[in-house]
């Protein structure tokens, strides 16, 4: 039983950065913008997050640094892709390359330093409950925040007027513009939200997961977050399921190896991506529901004045 609890704890820790980054990207894409620079924003968030926490000794300030860094990175994207109407795919890729280089530069002074990781919640009595105690009442703040965040995003998208307008921009920017909504301003805010989330997700890695900074430590998690948004078919509820599923596959394949289960580990590592491809195929075959990609996703919008 202890092993089950340990596995669940590892899964939650592995899933949290994916969930946070994907939540941000979901909002960005729902507004009609495809920002492929998640990996770049994450790694800069990781470098700045570690730097902030290391300089001040506060994990909270580190997390804020990560958020600000991710937001600044996303503003570069917004300037290029929205302000200057440059191709979004190319801009996003460039942002990733820039981020990888920039994070190495920022983090150069912190390499080899270590940090006391984010504290875990401890409520006497509750945290000690066998099996569920540490899972429910013994996580770090990032885990609880990520869940609150996705609930808030769901509520915003489906229960508020502002969320409806944001989705309208993503589905048909010409109509939204004609109705008088400031499409580019709304999209800029959505991109910034995506950047803030990516920065926080990146900061989670050196602040809570592996408390040190090394260049390239995000190791492709930004790309997984992007796949996750597609896997979730742009829906918050499915995003939660997907994030924990992706995390579970990662952790379980490691345990399977330890137990000597004869499934090739390479196959297990590829499973989340295979699942994403399958979901894409299913989505394109069942075009009746309203759950497919935002109609204006990735298209350039230049308002005529």
């Amino acid at each position, binding site marked *: 039983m202890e*092993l089950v609890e340990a596995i669940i704890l590892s899964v939650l820790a592995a899933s949290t950065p994916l969930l946070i980054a994907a939540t941000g990207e979901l909002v960005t894409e729902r507004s009609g913008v495809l920002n492929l620079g998640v990996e770049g924003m994450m790694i800069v968030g990781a470098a700045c997050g570690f730097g902030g926490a290391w300089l001040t000794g506060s994990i909270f300030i580190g997390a804020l640094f990560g958020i600000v860094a991710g937001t600044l990175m996303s503003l570069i994207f917004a300037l290029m892709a929205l302000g200057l109407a440059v191709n979004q795919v190319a801009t996003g890729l460039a942002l990733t390359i820039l981020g990888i280089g920039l994070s190495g530069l920022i983090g150069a002074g912190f*390499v*080899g330093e270590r940090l006391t990781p984010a504290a875990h919640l401890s409520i006497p009595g509750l945290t000690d409950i066998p099996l569920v105690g540490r899972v429910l009442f013994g996580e770090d703040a990032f885990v609880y925040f990520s869940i609150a965040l996705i609930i808030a995003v769901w509520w915003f998208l489906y229960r508020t007027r502002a969320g409806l307008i944001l989705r309208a921009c993503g589905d048909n920017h010409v109509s939204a513009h004609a109705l008088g909504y400031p499409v580019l301003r709304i999209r800029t805010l959505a991109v910034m939200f995506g950047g803030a989330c990516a920065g926080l997700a990146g900061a989670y890695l050196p602040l809570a997961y592996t*408390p*040190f900074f*090394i260049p390239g430590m995000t*190791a492709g998690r930004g790309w997984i977050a992007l796949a996750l948004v597609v896997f979730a078919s742009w829906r918050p509820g499915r995003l939660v399921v997907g994030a924990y599923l992706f995390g579970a596959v990662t952790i379980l394949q490691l345990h399977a*190896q330890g137990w000597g289960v004869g499934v090739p580990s390479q196959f297990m590592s590829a499973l989340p991506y295979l699942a994403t491809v399958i979901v894409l195929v299913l989505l394109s075959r069942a075009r009746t529901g309203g759950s497919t990609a935002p109609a204006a996703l990735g298209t350039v919008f230049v308002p005529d004045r």
Partner: protein
Amino acid sequence: MRKSLLALAAGILLAGSVSAASAADKLKVGFIYLGPIGDLGWTYQHELARQALVKEFGDKIETTYLENVPEGPDAERAIEQLVRAGNKLIFTTSFGYMDPTLKVAKKYPNVHFEHATGYKRDKNMSTYSSKWYQGRYIQGLIAAKMSKSGVLGYIGSFPIPEVVSGINATMIAAQSINPNIKVKIIWANTWFDPGKEADAAKALIDQGADVIMQHTDSPAAMQIASERGKLAFGQDSEMIKFGPKTQLTSILDTWAPYYIARVKAELDGTWKSEDTWGGLDSHMFAMAPYTNMPDDVKKIAEDAQAAITAGKLHPFKCPVIGQDGKEIECKGGANLADGQILGMNFYVKGIDDKLPGK
């Protein structure tokens, strides 16, 4: 996708980091690095050796390095760039640079190349590598002595001979202390992903391992072992900072003596193509101080290190028994032949796991 992005990134880096020639009579020495110099592991150790060169030869040489150069075809461009910048001796420091190095070497017969851990050579291209399995043997002795649960955890990168021979050397040593010792092996399928390495360490510890060994490059596993109050070995570099009460020892890549010898040969005009596969005796690697263990275990480790250095102890002394219980053909007289170790693709007896791809 990520590979090609890195390639692009490297292309951009290339444009910026090759410094222009200054004094004409200096020997120019170039380096190609796989990772960033701040990786605290593989590339960092090569960088330390480069700095040792600068210290040793001072004004007589000028060094240049290119970091984050991806393995594969793109490396060829990076190597050629170093040639064009006037470098006469070029170290390419990862296995995957083998074919690109060879290609450039054929094109520029007057430039000398040194390729790490490969097996293809030419009259102007040497290779060099280390017998890390000797260090793994010592770690196996320590691990078996220190493990209370009798289960070791081993994080592998890829099932290539270098890693497999390390696992085998570890287990042969561990079994000589405790015949019933078990090892759990998890392949990370990456050299570098701190998060995944940490997850693998957690999984191993959750499954009962209390001594963690790794053949991946980041200190993440060391840190997890430290958090959980277990023991671990470092990799490539000194990692004791990440586990002051955790690190037992670490295999340290010490390239400096070799690099200094090769540059000296180049300066003297005596450089020639060679195949160097050095061990503890030739100082191609060293063991970090033996820490966090009682004196009797320390003595066992030191004795083994002395015996291996003196050539009295060989980790793969025949008979070596394979996983199926059959004796491995002994091609090297008293020990397995070097070729058998360099191409090792089997597990020894006592490892329950199945070698991927077998």
